[in-house]
């Protein structure tokens, strides 16, 4: 989907990630700033891409400032950002839950 909105979720606290979504003409681009980028940067980028795609967002610019968040936090923040971007509040808990294995 296309949107002109920009949303930001999360905080700069340690073990959190702040995610900003901005319109992008084509594709998902991720600008990641992380204190664990050397060890987990590729993993974090792949995880956010996967979540966005599952929620049907394929054209978006992501700016993320990560302070060592765990995967569960990164997923939750990405989902919240995506829903807020789309203006949706009808969370599909069953679908979201099914991702957790």
């Amino acid at each position, binding site marked *: 989907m296309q949107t002109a909105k920009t949303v930001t979720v999360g905080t700069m606290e340690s073990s959190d990630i702040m995610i900003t979504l901005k319109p992008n003409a084509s594709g998902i681009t991720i600008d990641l700033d992380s204190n664990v980028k050397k*060890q*987990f940067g590729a993993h974090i980028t792949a995880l956010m891409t996967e979540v966005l795609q599952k929620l049907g967002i394929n054209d978006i610019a992501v700016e993320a400032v990560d302070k060592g968040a*765990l995967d569960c936090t990164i997923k939750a923040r990405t989902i919240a950002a995506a829903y807020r971007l789309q203006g949706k509040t009808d969370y599909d808990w069953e679908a979201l839950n099914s991702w957790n294995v």
Partner: protein
Amino acid sequence: MVENKLKREIPAKYAEQYGVYDGEFAHIDSYQAATKTIKPIKPNDSKLLGSIHEAIVKTGLKDGMTISFHHHFREGDFVMNMVLDEIAKMGIKNLSIAPSSIANVHAPLIDHIKNGVVTNITSSGLRDKVGAAISSGIMANPVVIRSHGGRARAIASGDIHIDVAFLGAPSSDEYGNINGTKGKATCGSLGYAMVDAKYADQVVAITDSLMPYPNTPISIPQTDVDYVVQVDAIGDPDGIAKGATRFTKNPKELLIAEYAAKVITASSYFKNGFSFQTGSGGAALAVSRFLRQTMIDEDVKASFALGGITNAMVEMQKEGLVDKLIDVQDFDHPSAISLAENADHYEIDANMYASPLSKGAVINQLDIAILSALEVDTDFNVNVITGSDGVLRGASGGHSDTSAACKLSMVIAPVVRGRIPTIVDAVTTVVTPGSSVDVVVTELGIAINPARQDLVDMFKGLKVPQLTIDELKDKAYAITGVPEKIEYGDQTVALIEYRDGSLIDVVKNV
């Protein structure tokens, strides 16, 4: 490349120069102690000089020499920056510096490196900015990281020959009798500085509290001191205790401390006359708190506590739980006051504290040591010098010394810090070999080094969860994921000496 006993690769030229690690006591051999040149003082000579500038001129300091400092003021130190700034102004270059450690407050050192004033460094540690700069490769020659005992050994054996020691003196008289318990910026024990004073060719005492002669007690005697300089301030007393010693409220740290105390009190070493050393971190201090309670409950008293003295130890001594405090360094102000007031609180130098080449260090008499870690691997090797991103940011300290010499060495650490696993497949950098580490204590339980079958038997009934080190690592990785390998450059930025002077690891640029 030469592979050492821990399968760490050491570049051939450094392997040849230093030798490589081959076991904890493989290189303990007889040697001729280092000597120094003495310029005698005659009856009417004065040692008092007007400025640091004048002292540098008088010592004849020139390009290529080695100078040293002590780190007893920790984050409150003014001396190293003052002296290096003056040296830089005078145009002296290509110096080797041998401070006992380097703190965040020494960030101006980065410019002195870039300007060619400082071209060689040996130190116990390198903190944030200086560590990051050196990791980025600003020095042509690698920094040599030495433990506290290893530094004392290197000085006593002549591996480090100090031309001029610039020693911050909390109080001194005009003739150079120095102690750390009187004056404006008291740091307590001068244990690391005492070794420099004994072996350096020339010693400059820099003080902001000039006392009438004779200044007592005498930690560093006039017979070791060439010049005395009075300045406005040598250090910030608040900085000395910075970063140390609050009692933690963090439940994870408290649980680790509780488990550690249970291990200690369940061990056969826990009996009247036992001895212990703790560090200054939050969890380590909490261990003393739990230990104290069991000592009261079971009426067990310690013969001595060693360190790295903190107020927690001072209070235990005041309560009669610990007979003596053996003190190479103080981590807070109450400890410095105790050293001044209490005859059973005794100051020792780093050679007596931990040198592997002394005629027996105090750590050889130590029962139990509590140590921290940035990382521990499944071979029980410990890293306390680099972050898991490969950047220099810690300190070797007394880690490898104490753990090698004491009877029960315990490494306490959380399984993960944020997203960083602490228990890993292979540590980023080895400072302490796994053979020195007996028990790893985490919030999820303990792992006993299988090489210590006696401890496995001893702790069979212990009411603390017991796991293998591999299980602890799996639990860490289950939370954080498996970290990617760090990509290093080709430049060696630090050599990690084992306490005996051989190379246990090297650090490459990132």
